């Protein structure tokens, strides 16, 4: 398990049984992204306008807020895995570790921020709150 040859590093560790985990999660979220993003685009296009009252009333409905939260989870998980592969392909050593750390911070912070915003709109909207 030392710093020797490649085979030396691998020997004794065995398979982690996680070889396809990243690949599969990427496909899984790709499928949910496909449905949720098409739902978002169609929903926004069908709104009479994108002004504050209209969008707030729309997002305060559970039928909009819940898919939006699911979309944020799915999209930001997919985004994190996608950019991770890009970083793995083009960066190495210290830069790779720094960028990977920043990516993880960004993805999680952004998703939490987005979900908080959705919940705030949903729970404080003055109009529209009906299902």
């Amino acid at each position, binding site marked *: 398990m030392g710093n020797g040859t490649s085979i030396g590093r691998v020997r004794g560790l065995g398979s982690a049984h996680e070889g396809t985990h990243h690949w599969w999660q990427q496909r899984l979220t790709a499928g949910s992204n496909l449905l949720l993003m098409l739902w978002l685009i169609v929903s926004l*296009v069908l709104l009479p306008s994108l*002004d504050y009252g209209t969008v707030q009333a729309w997002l305060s409905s559970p039928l909009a807020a819940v898919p939006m939260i699911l979309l944020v989870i799915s999209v930001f998980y997919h985004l994190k895995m996608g950019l991770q592969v890009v970083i793995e392909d083009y960066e190495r050593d210290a830069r790779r570790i720094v960028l990977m750390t920043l990516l993880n911070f960004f993805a999680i912070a952004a998703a939490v921020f987005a979900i908080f915003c959705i919940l705030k709109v949903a729970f404080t909207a003055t109009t529209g709150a009906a299902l």
Partner: protein
Amino acid sequence: MASARNENRPLSPHLQVWKWGPHMLVSILHRVTGSGLATVGAVVFLAWLGALASGEECYAWFMDLLTVKSGAPNIAGYILGIGLTLSFFQHMMTGIRHFFLDAGAGFELQENKRFAITTMVVSVALTAVLWGYLSYDRLIAPPVENAPIAVETK
């Protein structure tokens, strides 16, 4: 930590030795559009949600960055709007292509080439349909009466 690569060893010939084809183009487009959506798209999405959660004034300020008074997009709005929707549809179509390739289908040369070209045709078409639909009312609307440029009548 042992270095991942010995810098003294040559790299094998890579991109430069291959004749470019549609499959290579959509492959890199998938990565470029994905990276664009994950960075620019994510920032616009977060700014929109953040502005919405911050109240009417903040939301109006955000929308003012991207639209003109009538509610139509301004130049920045068009660049971001069309850029992000085209990127999304391209990423979506090449993503669907990946599903087929993952299943082991579509590797025959002609079919692979056709499918690759189709992803680009469909993404451009979907973007055109979306923005055509969004702009339809403005395109068929009669000219505004007090338009800044007066129409000369004799």
